[in-house]
């Protein structure tokens, strides 16, 4: 017997969907701007994986909500404050190093998180997780390689990677923050308890960063708020670009 409401599950699914969509949209900005052709195609592939993942979560969320809204309605007709993605996902790409470090932090996390989600008592979620984890393992292979390659590369590439790590470090605690919704659903065996992932994430990331001749920052700052809809100034611009077509021509198909 479930002792949580449909809206609890809906909010949880929306968080997962928003995470995937916003990172996918951000990553897609690399399309045609990659450092060279092969990496451009690879990056676009990763972006598409995330947008595909977002669709699966939105479709399920729309079904759970039961108000006749579609995946597109959820993606294109909600405002900034209604998006509950993690802040790290919405930060601009800055440079290649920044994008890769972000991707690496998220990939390590995604592999652990999705592994947990495959054991969800919610069959639909478990199925999405089994599909997505294959992609994330591949993404991790890529981002881990880049971390090493650029960390051990030139003085310039090492410097840029270190700057990215320093800039992003304070955004990582939010990946392990449990919302009330998640706590409730994790007790019910549906959501993953993020607390349990922190130790392994930290161990993996620390080891990889050291192998890449880079340092874990010792600063203690952290920024949170994405889950409550409190975003950086960057999300609005991203949404404007992503949503303008549907907002201008609602229901447009092509």
């Amino acid at each position, binding site marked *: 017997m479930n002792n949580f409401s449909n809206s609890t599950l809906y909010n949880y699914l929306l968080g997962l969907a928003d995470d995937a969509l916003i990172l996918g949209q951000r990553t897609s900005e690399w399309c045609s701007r990659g450092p060279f052709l*092969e*990496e451009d*195609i*690879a990056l676009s*592939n990763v972006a598409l994986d995330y947008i595909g993942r977002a669709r699966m979560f939105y479709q399920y969320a729309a079904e759970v909500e039961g108000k006749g809204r579609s995946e597109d309605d959820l993606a294109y007709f909600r405002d900034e404050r209604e998006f509950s993605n993690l802040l790290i996902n919405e930060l601009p790409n800055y440079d290649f190093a920044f994008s890769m470090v972000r991707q690496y932090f998220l990939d390590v996390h995604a592999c652990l998180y999705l592994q947990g989600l495959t054991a969800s008592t919610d069959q639909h979620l478990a199925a999405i997780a089994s599909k997505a984890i294959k992609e994330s393992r*591949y993404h991790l292979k890529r981002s881990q390689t880049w971390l090493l390659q650029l960390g051990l*590369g030139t003085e310039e590439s090492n410097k840029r990677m270190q700057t990215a790590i320093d800039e992003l470090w304070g955004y990582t605690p939010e990946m392990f923050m449990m919302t009330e919704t998640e706590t409730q659903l994790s007790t019910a065996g549906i959501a993953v308890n993020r607390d349990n992932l922190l130790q392994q994430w930290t161990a993996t990331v620390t080891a990889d960063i050291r192998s890449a001749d880079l340092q874990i920052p010792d600063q203690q700052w952290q920024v949170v708020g994405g889950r409550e809809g409190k975003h950086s100034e960057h999300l609005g611009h991203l949404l404007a670009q992503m949503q303008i077509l549907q907002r201008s021509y609602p229901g447009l198909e092509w």
Partner: protein
Amino acid sequence: MKKSNDLYEVFLRSIRGVDHRHVGSLHADTAEQALTYARDVYTRRSEGVSIWVVKSTDITASQEQDAESFYDPMDDKPYRHASFYVLPDEIDNM
């Protein structure tokens, strides 16, 4: 670490039991990276079940100017072809 960005040749096996075939080439810094790029560039529409990548410089190729000494001598040796045997009807291909 030096900047390499070497050229790699990509070979794909499309289904099990079939040979790998050359499909193209790409640039990568390491063989491992070449493999992941090959996956993204050449198999995104489910074209393959196995990939080989080989550094282009590791391939020794026959040269156009050697064609005369390489292939011409075979032209007048028809007895090397199995075309003189009559195949039983049940065998369609050989």
